[in-house]
């Protein structure tokens, strides 16, 4: 199993896109150009409905834990309280995961 050391920003971005691809495939939704990182996950003209977002978050948490041994809670009160949602775009979500991992390292939990 790759360790947390292999979990750089680029890997996390790939993970987010791969999960997003899987969620959209399950819903039989046409796949947009996911190379365009500016796609919106939530809000108006969003790719995902609320259930799709829940599925994406659960899938990401499981992949991070199973593939890299990193246990994160992505949708906690901290995430919900942010004025600018960390779930608004794939990039924002990638940045948020990076931030949480850095915080875990700083607290010695990772």
């Amino acid at each position, binding site marked *: 199993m790759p360790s947390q050391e292999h979990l750089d920003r680029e890997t996390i971005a790939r993970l987010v896109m791969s999960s997003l691809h899987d969620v959209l495939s399950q819903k039989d939704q046409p796949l947009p150009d996911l190379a365009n990182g500016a796609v919106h996950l939530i809000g108006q003209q969003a790719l995902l409905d609320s*259930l799709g977002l829940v*599925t994406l978050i*659960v899938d990401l*948490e*499981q992949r991070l*834990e*199973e593939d890299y041994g990193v*246990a994160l809670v992505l949708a906690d009160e901290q995430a919900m309280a942010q004025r600018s949602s960390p779930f608004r775009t794939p990039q924002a979500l990638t940045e948020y995961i990076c931030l949480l991992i850095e915080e875990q390292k700083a607290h010695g939990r990772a």
Partner: protein
Amino acid sequence: MAEREVVLITGTRKGIGRCLVDHFVRKGMLVEGCSREPLDWALEHYTHHAVDVADEGQVKAMLSSIQRRHARLDIVINNAGIASMNHILLTPADTVDRIMATNFRGTFLVCRESAKLMQRRRYGRIVNLATVAVPMRLEGEAIYASSKAAIVTLTQILAYELAPFGITCNVVAPTPIATDLIRHVPPEKIQRIVDRLAIKRLGCCGDVTNVVDFFVKPESDYITGQVIYLGGV
């Protein structure tokens, strides 16, 4: 992935939980179970976890272990529960915390972590245990019955939230059954409860497994958010 169905049952050390283990092993399933204290028995095709269901880390570790070893989870039965019979004026706050932690928080945690596994295959059956003390409004059981009423509401809302993932959530609510849970309840009080039932006898494990079998059948995919009270309450 395991070829046999995998079932997780909480509170398996004794009582109804133990009966459920025997029942599902006999049906040829792989059974996983947990209790806080170690077992004094063992059974082929049964794997035990020393877990306090109110402990989030321990519940997550148990579900991770099931995912690693079986890569599937078909059925969950939230049976773990504790009771304390007392008049409200004599009930310590610590007792309330303890009962709510095991009965409600524990059921919530096991439901949440199990549903994360089940949603991968878009299939799952969750059965939570409540009690006839909820509709019977039994004196002396205010906290225990409230914790189980919370489980009923939790289950009915989960039924909506998890239906899109192919997961059904239902409740079986037994009458008093001769287990350790009612060991300290005076016989005359048990008799008064039995006298209020339509069918005037104590329940038995077979009464519970019969309803559980109905809820967990693959054909019961149109049955969710339901509560079945035993004994004709």
